[in-house]
């Protein structure tokens, strides 16, 4: 019975560990919580109707983050011939979408990490390298990053990049919302540089109000939708557009469920499995053991009975054989005695003659 005690202790430890290790997941799984961002969390509103594709934002980001100088200068407009994305040494890019505007004009849009309210990358990282800060930025701690790239997989818009060329210390490459500058009271580099104020920086709740105000004042200029207000549970970087967002490669079919909710169910099941599965399996094992024992007992009983019966039969046989032998012996003795007497009589008769 020390085995079942061992089982019990194992279950207890297992459940405790699981309970301490997955509290967040279980919380997320609980029904009606909707995280609307930290109050006073900051964000950026990108008005694509104002963007003129001057790439000053790219240049500023490059300077502020000490990134390597690119091959082509930032004044080069031929880069727009191809769609670009973040990559090693490039946190943000502006892409041009030819002729998709309402009057057939080109539309420009800036790409960078959207700093979601419930970031998928943060949920995916198994060393907790991503943190959603109170200021609104999602920060990345390169000092613990193992390089598994689950964050690249999980991001619904595939925004982070990875330094595949770096053999010894590759890191994830993404916009930081210039948190160090923001903490000093400065503006993010791109926001400061934009001549058209296509990037508005402020508290997320204020940005939503501004966005709605703009849509109300210029209904002919904007699609009545703020991208990032609810997408994936809300992002800190939001967009306004004159055309369907999908035409600007802003995927609208990502839904409004924050990514952590997708795995909350599976993670929530872990303590259940840890708690119940060993009980069930031990139960099955115990039942089998019991079955075996009963089978063994029955076998032993049957064997014993059979042996006893065999012994009894053997005894009887022996007795019968012994009696027979006794009889035979007596018979033989009688016969021998008779023969001896006969012989003696014969010998006497011969002597007399």
């Amino acid at each position, binding site marked *: 019975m020390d*085995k079942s005690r061992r089982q019990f202790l194992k279950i207890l430890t297992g459940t405790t560990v699981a309970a301490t290790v997955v509290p967040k997941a279980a919380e*997320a799984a609980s029904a009606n919580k909707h995280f609307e961002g930290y109050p006073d969390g900051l964000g950026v509103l990108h008005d694509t109707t104002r963007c003129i594709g001057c790439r000053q934002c790219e240049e500023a980001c490059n300077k502020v983050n000490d990134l390597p100088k690119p091959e082509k200068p930032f004044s080069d407009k031929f880069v727009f011939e191809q769609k670009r994305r973040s990559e090693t040494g490039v946190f943000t890019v502006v892409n041009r979408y030819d002729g998709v505007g309402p009057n057939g004009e080109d539309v420009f849009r800036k790409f960078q990490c959207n700093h979601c309210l419930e970031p998928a990358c943060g949920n995916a*990282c*198994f060393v907790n390298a991503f943190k959603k800060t109170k200021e609104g930025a999602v920060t990345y701690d390169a000092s613990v990053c193992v390089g*598994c790239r689950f964050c690249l997989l999980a991001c619904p818009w595939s925004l982070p990049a990875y330094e595949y060329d770096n053999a010894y210390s590759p890191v994830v490459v993404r916009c930081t919302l210039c948190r160090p500058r923001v903490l000093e009271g400065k503006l993010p580099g791109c926001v400061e540089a934009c001549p058209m104020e296509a990037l508005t920086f402020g508290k997320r709740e204020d940005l939503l109000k501004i966005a709605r105000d703009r849509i109300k004042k210029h209904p002919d200029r904007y699609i009545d939708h703020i991208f990032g207000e609810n997408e994936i549970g809300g992002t800190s970087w939001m967009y306004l557009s004159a055309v369907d967002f999908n035409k600007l490669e802003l995927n609208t079919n990502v839904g409004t469920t924050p990514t952590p909710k997708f*795995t909350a169910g599976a993670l929530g099941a872990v303590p259940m499995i840890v708690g119940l*599965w060993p009980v069930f*399996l031990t139960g099955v094992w115990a039942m089998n053991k019991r079955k075996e024992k009963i089978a063994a007992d029955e076998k032993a009983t049957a064997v014993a009975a059979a042996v006893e019966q065999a012994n009894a039969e053997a005894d009887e046989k022996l007795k019968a054989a012994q009696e027979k032998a006794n009889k035979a012996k007596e018979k033989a003795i009688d016969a021998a005695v008779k023969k001896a007497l006969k012989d003696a009589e014969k010998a006497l008769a011969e002597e007399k003659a």
Partner: protein
Amino acid sequence: MSEHVAVVEKRGLITPFNVITGLIIIGGLILTVMRFTGGLSSVTNLDNYNPWGFWIGFDLLAGVALAAGGYTTSAAVYIFGMKKYHAAVRPAILTGFLGYSLVVVALLYDVGRPLRLPYPFLVQQGPTSVMFEVAACVGLYLTVLFLEFSNAPLEWLGIKKVARIISKLTIVLTIFGVVLSTLHQSSLGAMYLMVPAKLHPLWYSSFLPVFFFVSSMIAGLSMVIFESAISHKYFHHMMDEEHKKTADQLVFGFGKAASALLAGYFAIKLIGVSLDHNWGYLNSGYGYWFLLEILGFVLLPCICYAIGVREKNKRLIQITAAWTVVGIILNRLNISLVAFNYHLPDELRYVPHWMEICISIFLVTLAVVAFKFIVTRMPIFFEHPDFPDPHH
């Protein structure tokens, strides 16, 4: 019953097997140096849209699924009391142990900073991540497998006391192993729950964890049958009487179980399609590929297994087992490479670099070589005369 003598034939080192594996290993070592001096981009086609490639799809996902024979066999024998499969436990555990070791080694190649692999346990935890749970369970399960396997080398080395202690732990390790396997097999599927917009609707389902878990059992059973068939061909001389006698029972018994599981798996896959109203997707390129996967690699083996068991056709079951293994690999590759990023234009899609495939072959070869080394020396296919099995 073990009047068995381990005959290790004395042959020269230049055998076809050794030559081929030797070349593969040399090539693999060269590629390894390239990988660790040149970075991931020097040997892979991974990019920022496709961060996970062939190593994750095949070595990790398929590898973990196929190594599931360990827990299924030991569960069958020790928990569900099916003693007739006892001879299959050690080979299955060995396959499982080598399989999981292969997974961990493949991770060393795939991860950007392999020396930091212990970080989630030692430095900072990210428990909101499904992958954290996978890592913890895989790590623990590798330990369990190692302990379960360790009996063989301990017996071989004659360390009696420790071997006996570990023997006594069998049932605990088995239960622990089943729990851990359930968790990490399903969690590998749960990882893909995070990307509904990136995974084709026919493969994406909220039941991915269930699909992965059930298919892992199927993979494990099939892999045991497959490995047993190969072993009986090449390591027949290492096997004791019990092994040879129970071989057929194993094939038919596991074949029956696999058939039932495949039928259930087929049903839940169809239910998964129906629940999300995805029938319309079947009438497309991806749809036909999905149909091929579930009709040709799930339904067909199910029926073939059933027929094989009913007609006592060992050959059919063994072929079906190999077919099923291919099907599981296909399923894992479908989810990680084919159906993933289905919405991206062709020029952004990922095709494995030939070096990635070579490194995978290299790793599998290492496992095969290790397998051969172990079974030709340690009591895997036979009982060591000093250590009669107390569970008999």
